[in-house]
């Protein structure tokens, strides 16, 4: 009876997860342009990705910059904002709504807006920098800092991370803080000794979610650069590179693209394994502490 209820999902997981998972692995060893049947070529794609595709390394580097930068921004800023809102502020619901609001805006519209926010000549950010007496930048027109533009744009989604942290913070019993106060702990000691240890599971989870999302950054770059990852491939991200081979090259290189997808999967798996192993250590540590 239970199996009957879950049968739609079983069919779904076979069709939309397991089949593509295996098929893309097999396709990564073939030459495939959709029109003709795939032709087996062994590990050729993997060899040429690592030895003969400068854009692979470049896109990987750009993506690493985005992942490192945007995950740090979202975790640090999200946590800081959640701590602020947890200080018994008035109109908590209003602030939370305001901070969360940009995250619900469709990403296509956000991209159109941010093209102008980071406009080199008359953009909003340059106006702000000018108003407070700082130098202006050319953002997307300058290959050296174009990726930084996307990092600044990624503050848009800090609200999502903040909301999750805030819910975690609100779940910490007041008695813990009272006990720490009686022991003479100041604000910072309470943060480091009480709040952060209790929040580690949430922090780890947020890091994992954000890494997964950041690695797949695609839409805003595609829209804002018209699918080129310009200037001079300075903002070509990994998924954009993969998309390029599958859907913008003529003839399409679906096999090559599948190999890129599988390398991405391996990278994901690595991060997932690192986070799971380190987080388990932390949870254990916390359990020991609670037992004291």
């Amino acid at each position: 009876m239970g199996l009957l209820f879950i049968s739609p999902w079983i069919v779904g997981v076979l069709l939309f997860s397991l089949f593509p998972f295996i098929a893309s692995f097999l396709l990564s060893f073939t030459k495939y342009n959709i029109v003709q049947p795939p032709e087996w070529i062994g590990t050729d794609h993997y060899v040429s990705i690592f030895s003969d595709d400068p854009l692979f390394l470049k896109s990987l580097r750009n993506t690493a910059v985005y992942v490192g930068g945007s995950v740090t921004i979202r975790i640090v800023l999200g946590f800081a904002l959640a701590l602020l809102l947890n200080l018994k502020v008035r109109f908590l619901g209003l602030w939370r709504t305001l901070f969360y609001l940009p995250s619900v805006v469709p990403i296509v519209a956000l991209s159109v807006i941010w093209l102008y926010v980071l406009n080199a000549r008359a953009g909003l950010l340059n106006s702000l920098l000018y108003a407070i007496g700082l130098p202006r930048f050319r953002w997307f027109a300058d290959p050296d800092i174009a990726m930084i533009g996307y990092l600044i744009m990624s503050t848009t989604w800090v609200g999502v991370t903040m909301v999750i942290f805030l819910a975690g913070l609100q779940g910490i019993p007041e008695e813990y803080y009272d006990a720490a106060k009686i022991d003479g702990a100041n604000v910072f000691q309470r943060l480091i000794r009480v709040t952060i240890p209790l929040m580690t599971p949430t922090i780890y989870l947020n890091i994992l979610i954000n890494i997964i999302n950041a690695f797949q950054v695609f839409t805003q770059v595609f829209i804002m650069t018209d699918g080129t990852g310009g200037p001079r491939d300075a903002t070509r991200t990994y998924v954009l590179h993969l998309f390029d081979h599958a859907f913008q090259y003529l003839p399409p290189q679906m096999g090559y693209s599948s190999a890129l997808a599988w390398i991405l999967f391996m990278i994901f798996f690595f991060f997932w394994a690192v986070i799971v192993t380190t987080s388990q250590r932390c949870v254990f540590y916390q359990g020991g502490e609670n037992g004291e």
Partner: protein
Amino acid sequence: MAQRGFFERDPVFRLTRIVGRVLLYGLLIVMSLWFLAPLFWMFMSSFMPLDQVGVFPVQWIPRVWMPENFTEALKFWNFGTTFRNTMLITVVSIIGDIGSCTIVAYGFARFRFPFRDTLFLILLATLMLPFAVRLIPVYAAYEAIGWIDTFYPLIVPAFFGNAFYIFICRQFFLGIPQDLLDAAKIDGASEVRIFTQVMIPLAKPAIVVIAILSFQNSWNDFLGPLIYLKDPDLHTLAVGLYKFTSLPGQGGIYNQQMAASTMMVLPVLIVFFLFQKQFIQGANISGLKG
């Protein structure tokens, strides 16, 4: 308690407290401005004359209000068609997601069967699978069965359950007391009746959250419509807006681009303000994963 009262009478303590509060609210206001300024500017500039949009430093209030930016944008952008297409895809996906996910979640939450826990782990694992891995085989399959340039690739998967929504719904079902179901069973209700007449009404809060996540997902989706729908008559708002802003010669007409963006954003903001609580809940639940 006595200690706290002592400090509150201390003038130094009160002064630091006031300064702290001023700093706190100042910081919150600055952050709100950072988050909202781009959206506010989108709205304002959609009414500005073109030459005012390019002024440095940026201007916030239209010199003259020009609602004709919207009508001009509509000439190039087939808003009516894209809006209808998006609505159709969104509504059908929401129905599919709610139907399939509640049924599957009920199966996971309320029955014992072989490999149930393994299957549930597989469900969670699929959340980790990068979309890039599925992209190509799924596209090739749709191509093979002639589904390119139809809405099927964007709506049919919803009827087979979404791992994340199933997870949300299952957690909710687990929280419903078993006594309630036992009582219904003693009264002679069948499993299907228990599901439709006891569980579904109780699961309303979870269903609203799923509906909202599903709405956001379909309304905002860009990559799916981009690769599956080539015929302009089938375009969605997301792809239509992109095509409009990347039209040749369109690059500089920011006021109309912003008018077009406003048209796409407003329905989402209206839904957001109506269902704020559920939006926040949806985000919170994603924090419970794992």
